[in-house]
């Protein structure tokens, strides 16, 4: 399956949930989606199309809090970045950890550093700073 065919399949399946698609090169692509479609997109990429979940990166920009979920289709070396934008105040998104164990730790970490609330996470406790930081203080979040 080529990168183009993969992107077409993603476009056909997610339709109105897609905000933007940017094919940077033959092996790099960015797909921006609405936050409510994250589980649907994960099901499609991971379960149906055989992508590997690399990791997720959160960051704060002028627009709000952004999450990039990075996926890899190892057989063709494609890295697909799934991008969602959340509001700065009270950012929340559906958790993937219940179905996909690989997302568990990184969601806890993003919650801890940016205060993103992952709904229905099985155990949204601190991962890296247990007992060292005050509650409700998110060290990577800019006010």
């Amino acid at each position, binding site marked *: 399956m080529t990168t183009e065919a993969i992107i077409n399949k993603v476009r056909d399946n997610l339709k109105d949930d897609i905000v933007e698609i940017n094919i940077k*090169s033959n*092996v*790099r692509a960015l797909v921006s989606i609405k936050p409510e479609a994250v589980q649907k997109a994960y099901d499609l990429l991971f379960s149906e199309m055989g992508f*590997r*979940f*690399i*990791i997720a*990166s959160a*960051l704060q*920009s002028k627009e709000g809090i952004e999450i*990039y979920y*990075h996926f*890899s289709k*190892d*057989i*063709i*070396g494609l*890295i697909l*970045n799934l991008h969602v934008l959340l509001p700065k105040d009270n950012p929340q998104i559906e958790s993937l950890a219940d179905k*996909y*164990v*690989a997302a*568990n*730790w*990184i969601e806890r970490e993003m919650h801890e550093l940016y205060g993103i609330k992952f709904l229905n996470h099985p155990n949204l406790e601190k*991962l*890296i*700073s*247990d*007992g*060292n930081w005050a509650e409700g203080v998110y*060290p*990577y979040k800019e006010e």
Partner: protein
Amino acid sequence: MKDVQWVTGYNHRGIEKLCESKTFDQVFFLVERVCGICSTSHPFAFANAMEEICNVELTNRAKYIRSIIGELERIHSHLLWVGLAGHFLGYNTVFMWAWKYREPVLDLFEMITGNRNSYAMFKIGGVRRDIENSMIPSMKKVLDIVKKKTDLLIGAVMDDPVIHARTKGVGILTKEDIIQYGALGPTARASGVPIDVRRDDPYAAYPLVNWKVITAEGGDVFAKTEVRLLEINESISIIEQCLEGLTKEKEGEIEVKVKEIPEGFGTGHAEAPRGEVFHFVKTDGSNYPKRHKIRAPSYMNIGTFKKSCIGQTISDATIALAAVDPCYCCTERMAYVYNYSTGEKILNGSELIKLGQQKTDEIRKQLKMDK
């Protein structure tokens, strides 16, 4: 074993945040210190990410030098692991042997980079130091010693009936476990999942040389040992071919000048000894990263202990954990056995290792083998 619980210690070093206050050139030295053992894999992934943003193509000479450093690192890291695994299993001779023949590899590093560890070789667009062609014959000589000695070591480990009895069927991870947990590197390849960034998303000199991805099917500790040991041979062959390639390239062409880093983001990855290292960098047109996310392979690999340890005996815990080659210096230093009902500590780390060693002794007696 009923359950395994993960408690992270107080060692969050804030490297990602620190990167945001460093220039791109300085970040290389910082990320090199994420891990002491695979200290070049982070600069490697970071360079790949940055070169994606500014779209540069390296010279062949720089590509060869990068791959030589990457593969030397794989050899010394795998030798270090074999030594440690030997220690956990009560084979201190393997430990001494593996670490002794790791020394000539570090000598090679010193010849090429000036350092035994933390080599400071990478920069955007190339490498910082050249390998003089006149040095190549003496490097090949050292490499021959490494090859001869590791061949002996590989033979000794793979033919030992006690090691077979002790590690086969222990800490099994199935293909499904690997996919669910997103496990990487030799851990994945030992369970028959043939992923390797060097082949899947080629970078540096890997497409220019002949080599193969080593896999095994067992998924147990023995399969992981097998994959790592055979990878040492592949790495030696890659280095030999790279050194050969260097002789055909002009000396001194080791970098492409990059003047500006445009706004954008890059996703770079590289195959470290333990699996894929992943760096995500977002830039805003200034000379420092806006955001830098680092994911080391142990972050994905360690989680698999939920599958590999549960149902095993406690004496197999240390080796089942150690089989993924967890970078514990980057994670945590302590292991305890708890009483499941009372929460009371029963065994500490060294007692756990002792248990593992005793089990090997018992197998040795059953097989009537001398130490």
